[in-house]
C-alpha cells in the first residue's frame, strides 16, 4: 500500500481486503461505550475541504478522533483560500504545521496528486472533481460485503451520471479489483466516450438490468445537466432511469439499493425506495466512519520506512 490514497485503482486486491478487514474490526468499537482507540495519538489530520461537504468532513473527523488523532479543519470559505491563496501555498502552510495526513476534497480533478508533491504527509482523496472518491468506494464495498456476505462475483449495477461521477469511477475500479461484476446503466450522453475500455459492462436499459442485480447503486443526477442537453427533462430522466417502487420489485429478493448521497428524492430515487428495508443508505454513513478509521490507521499507524520514528 502506498502512503497516499488518491485513486481506488492504486489498491491491489490485498490492499483492498486489508482495508475492509481492518474496518470490520474497527466497526465493533463503535458499539462500545468507549469508542476511542489511542493508536493515532499525537498525529495531526487536516481536513482540507475546498468543496462544501459537511457529511464527508464529519465522517473523516469522527474517524480521526476515534483514533485519538488531532483534527484541524480548513474549509475554503472564509479562509486564506477564499482570498485566492494557491493550492501550493496552502500545502506549504499545512506542511509547516506538521500535518501527518491531509484529507482533501477539491473541485479540480488531480488536486490530490498535486498536493502529494508538496507535502510529506499522507494525502487522502476525499473527492477530486470528476476523478475519484476512493473512501466512498471502500465504504460501498464494505457495505455490500456486510449485507451480502461477499463481493467476489457480486453483480453490481451503477445507474446515473457516470460521466461526471467520481463515485462511479472509484467504484468501477475497486469492485473490479475485488472481483465483482459491474454494469453501468445510463443514457449514452452520461457515459464517457471511452467507457468501453473500462472493466465493466454498459447498458442503456435499466429494467433489463435490475433482475440480474445483487446491488443497484443510484448516482445523484444534477438538474443543471438538463441545461447542457445531457437529457431533455428531469421527467424523462426519472422515467427511464429512476428507481421507483415498481423497479425495486424487479430486483432479486436479496437485492440491495445503495446511494452515495446526497439524494434527489423523486429524481433518481423514489422516497419509498430510499426508506425501504433494501436501502443501505443509512448504514453507509456508519460504515463510512469505520472505513475511514481503517484508512487512517493503515496510512498513519505505522512507519513508512522501517525504524523511522515520525
Amino acid at each position: 500500500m502506498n502512503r497516499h490514497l488518491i485513486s481506488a485503482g492504486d489498491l491491489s486486491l490485498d490492499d483492498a481486503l486489508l482495508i475492509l478487514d481492518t474496518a470490520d474490526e474497527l466497526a465493533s468499537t463503535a458499539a462500545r461505550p468507549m469508542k476511542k482507540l489511542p493508536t493515532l495519538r499525537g498525529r495531526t489530520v487536516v481536513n482540507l475541504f475546498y468543496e462544501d461537504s459537511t457529511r464527508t468532513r464529519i465522517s473523516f473527523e469522527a474517524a480521526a478522533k476515534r483514533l485519538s488523532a488531532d483534527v484541524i479543519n480548513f474549509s475554503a470559505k472564509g479562509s486564506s483560500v477564499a482570498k485566492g491563496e494557491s493550492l501550493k501555498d496552502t500545502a506549504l502552510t499545512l506542511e509547516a504545521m506538521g500535518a501527518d495526513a491531509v484529507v482533501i476534497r477539491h473541485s479540480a480533478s488531480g488536486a490530490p496528486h498535486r498536493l502529494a508533491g508538496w507535502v510529506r504527509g499522507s494525502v487522502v482523496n476525499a473527492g477530486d472533481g470528476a476523478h475519484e472518491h476512493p473512501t466512498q468506494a471502500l465504504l460501498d464495498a464494505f457495505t455490500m460485503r456486510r449485507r451480502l456476505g461477499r463481493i467476489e462475483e457480486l453483480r453490481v449495477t451503477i445507474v446515473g451520471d457516470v460521466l461526471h461521477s467520481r463515485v462511479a469511477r472509484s467504484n468501477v475500479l475497486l469492485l473490479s479489483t475485488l472481483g465483482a461484476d459491474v454494469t453501468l446503466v445510463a443514457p449514452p450522453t452520461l457515459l464517457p466516450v471511452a467507457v468501453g475500455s473500462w472493466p465493466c459492462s454498459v447498458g442503456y436499459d435499466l429494467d433489463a438490468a435490475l433482475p440480474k442485480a445483487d446491488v443497484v447503486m443510484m448516482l445523484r443526477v444534477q438538474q443543471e445537466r438538463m441545461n447542457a442537453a445531457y437529457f431533455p427533462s428531469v421527467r424523462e430522466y426519472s422515467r427511464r432511469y429512476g428507481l421507483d417502487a415498481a423497479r425495486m420489485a424487479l430486483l432479486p429478493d436479496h437485492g440491495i439499493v445503495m446511494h452515495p448521497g446526497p439524494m434527489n428524492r423523486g429524481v433518481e430515487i423514489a422516497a419509498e425506495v430510499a426508506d425501504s428495508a433494501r436501502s443501505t443508505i443509512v448504514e453507509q454513513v456508519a460504515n463510512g466512519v469505520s472505513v475511514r478509521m481503517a484508512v487512517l490507521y493503515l496510512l498513519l499507524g505505522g512507519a513508512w520506512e522501517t525504524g523511522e520514528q515520525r
Partner: protein
Amino acid sequence: MTGTWLITGARPLGGEPADVLIRDGVIAEIGPGLDAPGAPEAPGAPGTTGAEGAADATAQRLDASGLILLPGLVDLHTHLREPGREDAETVATGTAAAALGGYTAVHAMANTDPVADTAGVVEQIWRLGRQAGRCDVQPVGAVTVGLDGAHLAELGAMADSAARVRLFSDDGRCVHDAVLMRRALEYVRAFGGVIAQHAQEPRLTEGAQVNEGEISARLGLTGWPAVAEEAIVARDCLLAAHVGSALHICHVSTAGSVEIIRWAKSKGWQVTAEVTPHHLLLTEERATGYDPVFKVNPPLRTAEDVAALRAGLADGTIDCVATDHAPHPLEDKETEWQAAAFGMTGLETALRVVHQAMVEPGLLDWAGVADRMSSRPAAIGRLGGHGRLAAGEPANLVLYDPGPREAVDPTVHASKSRNTPFRGLMLPGRVIATFLRGRPTVLDGKLAW
C-alpha cells in the same frame, strides 16, 4: 555593419562538407575549399582543401566541421507576450530564445494585451523586434477586433503598416463564425494575405482540458474531442476553395485533420498547415500525473495521431513545423490542472525535437528539415529574405551539431518561462551558431551578445 565570415567544413542541408563565405550580410559563396576574398576558387573546381585565406585579415573564421548547415529557421507561430504579459516573456527574451533555437525569424501571434488588431500595435511589436536585433519579428495581425470573433479588424491598415502584416490569426481563439471566416478569407485576397485558423469548435470544447478519450475518462477531466478540430478544418478548407483564398491551419493535432488537409491539397486548394514539435513527440499519456506542464491547446493526443502527423509532415501534407511557443509564469502552471494555463515553450527545443521525431527515424532528411522549418514557413509567411541557402541570399543560417545527446534543462533557457514539457528528456543535437543577415546572434551555443 557585419564583418566577413568564413565558415569552414559545414554540411549544407546535411550534405558534403563545404565552406560558406559571408560578406556584407549576404552569402557570397558556398562551396568546398573557399578562401577569403582575393582568390576564391572557381565553383565546381576540384577542391584543394584549406588554401589559407591570403589577403583579408578581417575575415572571422568559424570551424564548422561536422556541423549541419541550415537556412535560418522561421517560426510561423510564436507568442512573445509583449505587450501585456511581460512577466511571461518579452520580445527581447523571446527573440533571444528564438536565436538560441536557430531561428532568424518568428511570427508573433496577436493575442497580446492590447490585442494586435491595429496598425499601431503591430508596428510597436515590429519595432521592439528590430531593437532587440536578435531575430526578425514579423507581427501577426488579429482577424477580429479584440479577438471577439464578431468584427473584422483593420486588416488592410495592418497590411500597409511598417510591419507589413500578411499573416492574420485569432490564435488562442477560433474564428468560429462561418460568415466571418468567409469574409476574412475574401478580404485578404486584396493584398495577398493569409488567414491562419486555430481550429476549435468552441461549443464542443467548453471547459475542455485534455484529449477526449481513455485518458480523459480515467482522469475525470473534460475532453477535447478530435472532431472539434476536424470539423473546423474541413469547413475552412471548403470555404477557402469556394472564395479562392489562402488558408493556413495552425497546430494540426489529429490524424483526421491530416487526412482532410491531404484531400484538400489534392484538389489543388490553397491550404497550408503546421504542426508543433510537441505534437510530433508526446501523447496524452503525459497527462496522467496531472502535471500542467503537459497542458496545451490543442491537447496532446494519441499515438495514432502522432504517427499520422509525422507521416503528414514527411510527405508534405503538413507544410511546416511551427513551435506555438507559449511561455507562462510558474504560478500559472504550478496549480491543479484545470486552473492552469494552456501552453508550452518551444523555441529552444524545436530543432532537437524534430531531429528526434523525424530525422532519427528516417522520416525526414536534413534537406527536408530545412524545407519544413525554414523555406516553407518563409513562403507561407510571405517573408522574403529567409528560407534560402544560396549565394546571393541574405546570410540567415544556423549551424547545428547533431552529435551530442543531453537532457533538456529549462534553467538555462533564455526564455523567461520554464514551462517546457521536455524538461529532463534526453534529446539529440545542439544549435552551435545562428547568423542573422551575416551577424552572429549565437556563437558556440550561447548568445553572442
